[in-house]
């Protein structure tokens, strides 16, 4: 019962945050509501026993990625969103498509997985086990993603560097 209560509270917070992201016109509010979503998702992970993931969710997603977003918003001084009508396709095709897809999926999920239930902390994902998996079974993907991150770092540096600055450096 307590499990369901906590789940419901944070699910509501989560969905509220997600909806708020859609409603808010200023990106910084959107970013903060996304942080709320991520924080409450971390609680859901804890409920499922994934403690390491919960911590990483907070540290990486909320503590690093979203900070990066806010940083960019601050840097570019992004203002309130403009209301332009650039795309009819997105409204006419995308929204109905999204609705149809999600309704169908929800129906299937409710219909076919309703009887199974998950206990609180059903699968304890402690750092030790996750680490073991990462460095044994998933060593290659792990290394590949590390290379990917390295490439992303270099790409970000190259993309964000001012062309003039780079040229000056080359001259000097």
């Amino acid at each position, binding site marked *: 019962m307590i499990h369901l209560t906590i789940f419901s509270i944070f699910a509501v917070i989560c969905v509220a945050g997600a909806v708020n992201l859609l409603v808010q016109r200023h990106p*910084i509010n959107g970013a*903060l509501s996304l942080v709320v979503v991520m924080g409450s998702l971390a609680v859901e992970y804890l409920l499922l026993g994934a403690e390491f993931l919960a911590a990483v969710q907070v540290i990486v997603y909320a503590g*690093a990625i979203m900070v990066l977003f*806010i*940083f960019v918003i601050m840097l570019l001084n992004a203002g309130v969103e403009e209301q332009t009508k650039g795309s009819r396709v997105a409204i006419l095709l995308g929204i109905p498509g999204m609705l149809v897809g999600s309704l169908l999926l929800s129906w299937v999920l409710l219909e076919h997985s309703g009887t199974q239930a998950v206990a609180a902390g059903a699968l304890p994902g402690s*750092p030790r086990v996750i680490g073991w998996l990462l460095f044994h079974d998933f060593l290659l993907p792990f290394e590949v993603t590390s290379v990917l991150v390295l490439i992303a770092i270099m790409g970000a540096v190259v993309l964000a560097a001012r062309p003039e600055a780079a040229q000056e450096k080359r001259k000097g």
Partner: protein
Amino acid sequence: MNVETFILVSVIKIVLAVIVLLTAVAYTVWLERKVVGHIQNRWGPTRVGPFGLLQPLADGVKFIFKEDLTPPHVYKPLYIAAPMIALTFALSSIAVIPFGNTISIGGIQTPLQITDINIGLLVVLGITSLGVYGVALAGWSSNSKYSLLGGLRASAQMVSYEIALGLSLIGVLIMAGSFSLRDIVNAQSGHFWGFIPRWNIFQGQIVAFFIYLIAAYAETNRVPFDLPEAETELVAGYHTEYSAMKFAMFFMAEYANMITVACLASLLFLGGWHGPLFGPPILQALLPLFWFGLRVFVFLFIYIWVRGTLPRFRYDQLMAFGWKFLLPLAIANLVVTALIVALRA
């Protein structure tokens, strides 16, 4: 232990911890003023109470009664929320910090810690990483160029140094094999050859300790890395536009963060509460608390000492130092530690 006693004990512990922490925050401020004063050949606060000991109280009263200005054109919701966010995250990490061994009062066994969780260190890291928001939002929502620049600097600096900080901790984690702060401290009990304590700093983590020390200064925006609030360029950085209690919250958050960092350093590198135990049972029970407090005090003293001694870095120097020296050094330390542990196993 049934649920009721658990809740009761927890509430008592929370109240005690928060009171102690806030007092500590207040007196760290006093200590800083005093020590810096002496370093600069002044007296520091002397008027309020003996040795100015009541100065923090007077400051608190002053903050409460000051006019709470809200400048025009600020983005109000975040302007108000930012100091709260900062202080909340700064205080909440105390929840997982252990102060001493398990004690037993009236048949109830309880650890000297609000809650003992097996990923304590991760939780501390998560909470400190969220602390950036207070600073960044304050800077942005103030709608002032000084604040914005201060906030930008702060968030970039904190995100950058968090990496070196985290990596310096991994060496300790490898030695202890656990994320639980209590386990880490327990792994440091005992002595080498009977007299050198088995603190991590003596177990080859000395480099990691200094990386941690430097990164911690940057994380808490302290001298020599206090660029977000560099008064000569940015007036007061991200809290330029704040006054009264909101300003006090940032202030408290900063010192609370310092204390958290000092606690972590004691726990991770300096052997936590381990020390010689002697005397009657009561003393034996309280001595660990004392040893722990002593370490935290020494660490804080070094903090203040550095502030009184070192000049401020330039911003590009700060970033270059963090990314090009501290981070590679931390990685090298990690690799060496891992190798040693693997070879020893």
